[in-house]
Every structure is written in structure tokens, then in C-alpha cells.
């Protein structure tokens, strides 16, 4: 008799792509935090991290004015001209046209979340219409969420078909597929979902950890599982997929740990904002703060940098 349960479907997929050694992953990533990165290499890493940021605002209270100031900050993060621009500004679809307007001729991309972000719980037709609207409003990149309900029920074909439909709706815009790892429960599921997505997206598209709207976001552990999936997929197919951890990365130190993971898993070819991004809102200020500290030798107060509300 044909077994149709969710666990059987996952078992068949894992037979093909191989399971994750949880203990091994946790031990591996624990080592990343012990690398000694100082002086020149630290400055290089901090600057690189700035260029990889998708500067994000995803709140109900977003206004065109707030997006405008975010765009100005994206173009020139600090009064120090030697600090590079960020990679992209990430907003809700209704704000995409405002971001497009304020970014003007700069090379910074407009990224828009779509497909009923963050839950994805809307009819496929609605989700695709949202993607098309965002692209029409000037979004260079679309951040979609996968159908976690379908994934957990074992309906992998449906998950994949929906992603493929979104790829088509994106047209020339790049796609980032949010797996929402906190809702996938296990490393095996994360690896499986990564492969489902990678099999239908294009070279230069991304897989992304989280929406940032749940309790558990990007960690070194789930980042590592996804990086290894990208590596294995690349070795099999020669298609290079990008990676974007998002949510919970707030300090420069964390960002450097993530970059160490990229360097030691995928190598230098992925140390570019074409293949690696940070989805973050407060990370940029801490990076600027640490860059300034490296430059002047003096620890900096957070209120010297924009959008630090506390003045104490």
C-alpha cells in the first residue's frame, strides 16, 4: 500500500538529499564564534557587512516619510563618506514605489516582501497579484514566504509549484524565498525546504531564513544548514543560490560570526552582496558604531548614530 503521510514524504526527500547531523552542525557553528578577527580584517568584515544589509522596515506604522528617511540612510549610512551604501531597502509592497522614488539613481535595490507576508495565508491568486503589483511599483527583489502549512502536511509538490508560480510572476526581479525556519521545527525540514526552493528558483535568487515576525529567527545553526544545502546544490548542479539570514542579527559581532560561516562553508565567492545578505534594521547602527570605534579608538555612544531613540 502506498504510504501518503507527511513523514513518509519527508523520508523520501531526505533519502535523496541526505539528512542533517544536528549535533555536528551545533558543534561546527559553536567554533565560528571563537575566530579572532582584529584590526584590518575586522574593518574589512564590518564594511562588507554594511554592503550586505537589506535595510528593513516592516511595521504597520510605516509611512512614506519613514521610508524616505530609511532610503537616505541606505544611500549614505553615516556622515563618514568612506562608508559604503547598503545592498537594498526592504519594505512592504505599498511602500515599494516610495522607496523606488527616494532611491533615485543609486544602485541600491528595492526589495519588497510579498505573498501575504508574514503568514502567507492567502489564496495563491492573491499572493501572485501582490507580487506583480510590487514588481510593477519598482521592486527589484521580491521576498516571498513559502506555504508552511502545505510543507508540514507533506504536500511538497504544492509548495514547489507555488514557488515556481512566484518565480514566473517576478519576471526580471530577483526572488528571495523565506522558509520561516522557526515554523519548520527541525534541521531536516529546513534542509528539505531549502532544496524544494532551490530546485525551482534561478541562479542569483536567494533562500532566506525568517520573516523576523516570529520568536526564533536567524541563528548560526539554521544559517549553517541552509549554507550547506546551497553548497551541496551548487556541487550537484553548478547553480549558485544566495543566502539571506534575517531577524535577530543586531550586533556587529554577530554579523562577523555569520560571515565566518559563509567564508568557511561556501568560500570567498559568496562574500558579496550578490550572494549573501543580512535582513536587519538595527544591525547597521551597530556596524557604524564599531567602524567608528576602529577608526577613532574610542568606544562610541549609540546616540551618535541615527535612529537610536534612547538619549540616556
Amino acid at each position, binding site marked *: 500500500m502506498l504510504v501518503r503521510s507527511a513523514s513518509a514524504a519527508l523520508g523520501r526527500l531526505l533519502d535523496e538529499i541526505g539528512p542533517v547531523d544536528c549535533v555536528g552542525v551545533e558543534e561546527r557553528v559553536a567554533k565560528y564564534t571563537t575566530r579572532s578577527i582584529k584590526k584590518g580584517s575586522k574593518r574589512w568584515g564590518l564594511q562588507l557587512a554594511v554592503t550586505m544589509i537589506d535595510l528593513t522596515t516592516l511595521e504597520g506604522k510605516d509611512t512614506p516619510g519613514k521610508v524616505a528617511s530609511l532610503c537616505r540612510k541606505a544611500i549614505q549610512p553615516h556622515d563618514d563618506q568612506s562608508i559604503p551604501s547598503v545592498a537594498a531597502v526592504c519594505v512592504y509592497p505599498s511602500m515599494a514605489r516610495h522607496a523606488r522614488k527616494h532611491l533615485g539613481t543609486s544602485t541600491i535595490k528595492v526589495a519588497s516582501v510579498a505573498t501575504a507576508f508574514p503568514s502567507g495565508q492567502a489564496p495563491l491568486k492573491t499572493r501572485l497579484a501582490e507580487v506583480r503589483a510590487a514588481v510593477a511599483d519598482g521592486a527589484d527583489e521580491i521576498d516571498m514566504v513559502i506555504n508552511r502549512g502545505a510543507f508540514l502536511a507533506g504536500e511538497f509538490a504544492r509548495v514547489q509549484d507555488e514557488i515556481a508560480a512566484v518565480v514566473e510572476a517576478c519576471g526580471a526581479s530577483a526572488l528571495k524565498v523565506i522558509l520561516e525556519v522557526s515554523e519548520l521545527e527541525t534541521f531536516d525540514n529546513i534542509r528539505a525546504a531549502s532544496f524544494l526552493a532551490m530546485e525551482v528558483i534561478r541562479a542569483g535568487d536567494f533562500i532566506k531564513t525568517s520573516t523576523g515576525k516570529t520568536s526564533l529567527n536567524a541563528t548560526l545553526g539554521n544559517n549553517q544548514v541552509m549554507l550547506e544545502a546551497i553548497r551541496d546544490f551548487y556541487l550537484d548542479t553548478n547553480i549558485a543560490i544566495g543566502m539571506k539570514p534575517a531577524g535577530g542579527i543586531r550586533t556587529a559581532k554577530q554579523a562577523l560570526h555569520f560571515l565566518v560561516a559563509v567564508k568557511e562553508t561556501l568560500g570567498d565567492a559568496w562574500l558579496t552582496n550578490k550572494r549573501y545578505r543580512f535582513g536587519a534594521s538595527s544591525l547597521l547602527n551597530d556596524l557604524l558604531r564599531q567602524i567608528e570605534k576602529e577608526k577613532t579608538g*574610542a*568606544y562610541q555612544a*549609540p546616540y*551618535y548614530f541615527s535612529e537610536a531613540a534612547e538619549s540616556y
Partner: protein
Amino acid sequence: MSRLPITKTPKPYVGGSFIRSESGRTFPLADATGAFFANIPQCTRKDLRNAIEAAAKAGPGWAKRTAYNRGQILYRLAEMLEARRDEMIGTLVRFGSTKSAAAKEVDATTDRLIYYAGWADKYEQVLGNTNPVASPHFNFTVTEPMGVVGVIAPDAPALLGLVSLIAPIIVSGNTVIALAAEKNPYPSIILGEMLATSDLPGSVVNLLTGFRRELIPTFATHTHLRAISAVAGPADRQALRLGAAESVKRVHFTDLEGAAWFKTEAESVYAIRDFLEFKTTWHPIGA
């Protein structure tokens, strides 16, 4: 059968908990007889940085407490010191005080806390003002705490000197990172244990142990410290002033020595004023 000795690991009170230095370094401390007493954590500039981050988080909550409540908490700290008076006297004796001098220092310290506890809900009436102006405005000046303040405590008196510098700073809602006496750090460890049980929110007072020459440059240049209160020699004073200039930090030196710390002249509302910002408001009124 004789018991095995239970020796204590001295740990400074930073960020509301008792820490070892992030560096793992310690330095050996001998008591007055020259016998080894304990290894004291040798805090680094990173410990200082972490302490400042913690203090900045605790600061707004502490400043929002009512003046009355801050007074209560300082009084409660004095109660803790009074309750453990014998232990503190024993500590001071172990590190070189005579018994009577130690008792005098502990009592003076308790009294100093009570003194500033009393000022908590009174200094505003003395230092704030309504100002006469020649226009239809109600013009008034109120005080606000500065933020995170650094303290460099004297070697002697180790306890009274430290508390005399800290109390007038925190009473107005500032937070403090203090470097305890380099030569006699152990009383600050005991003081930390009292702070932890005194209703004072964690991170409002952070006590580091370590070496002046290692930490003073960071105290001077860290831009998040808004002011420094120090007892320091000429070389340290210059280092503090030069480093503080870059971030326009207020630097205040105390010149007291020996018996002068015990006199009533050593306590004053002006010690509170030294770490306040004044805000003047012009409020329009009908002519």
C-alpha cells in the same frame, strides 16, 4: 575533625550580577600581614564597555523613579551597610585599618549614604528655580541627570572614598561605573554584595576592580560616559582631561585627603549639582 576551608572567590558587581573579568585575568591580593588573600578580577576595557552598555539600559528606568523612591533606596543601602557593619569593619582591619579607624570609616560611610538619601527629594528645590524674565513667560529651570558617569575611586579611604563619590551621582538618577581602589579593592566587593540586596536596580552602580593605568584611557575616551568623578594624581588628571575633551565630557576632581573625607565639608548638595544638566523652559503666559 577539622573542616576544609571555604574560600570565597571575590567577584565585582557589574550589570546586576557578580562577574569575572571577560579576559579571565586576575591579580593576587595580599592582606595587611602580607599573606595571600585572594585573586581579584583584573577588569579590562571590554568589561568597562559592557558595564556602560548595561548602565545605559538601566539608566532611564532609574531616572524615572520618583525622587522619594531613590531616597528610600539609598537609605536602604545604608541599612544594609549597618546590618553588616561588623563584617565590613573586619574587612577594613584585615587590609590595614586599626579597629577604631575601621569602625569610624564604616559609620561615616553609612552616615554619608543617609545624608544623600535625605537630599534625594530636596536638591531640586534648592538647585532648580523660577526665573524673573521681562516678557510674558513663566521661566523655570529644572535639573536632569546626565547619564552614565565614571568614577575613579581613591586608594584611601577605600570604602568611604568610593561611596562619597558614588552617592551624590546616583541620587539624581545617573548611573555609575566605578573603578574601585586599586590597592584595596576588597571593600568594593563587599559593597557590591550590599548593593545587590538594597533594592537598587541592577546596573545602576557597577563596580570594577583592576588597574588604573589600564582602564583610565578608556574611561577618558568612551563617548557614552557623560562625566567623570575622580580622585587622581597629576598624570592621571592629564590623561582624563585630554581623553574627555574629544567627547566634551565633564571631568570633576576631588582633592580631599585623609581625615578630610570624614568631615561634614566633604558632603554637600553641590556634589549632586556637579553631575546634573540644567534645563530652562520659557512657557508663554497671558500678558
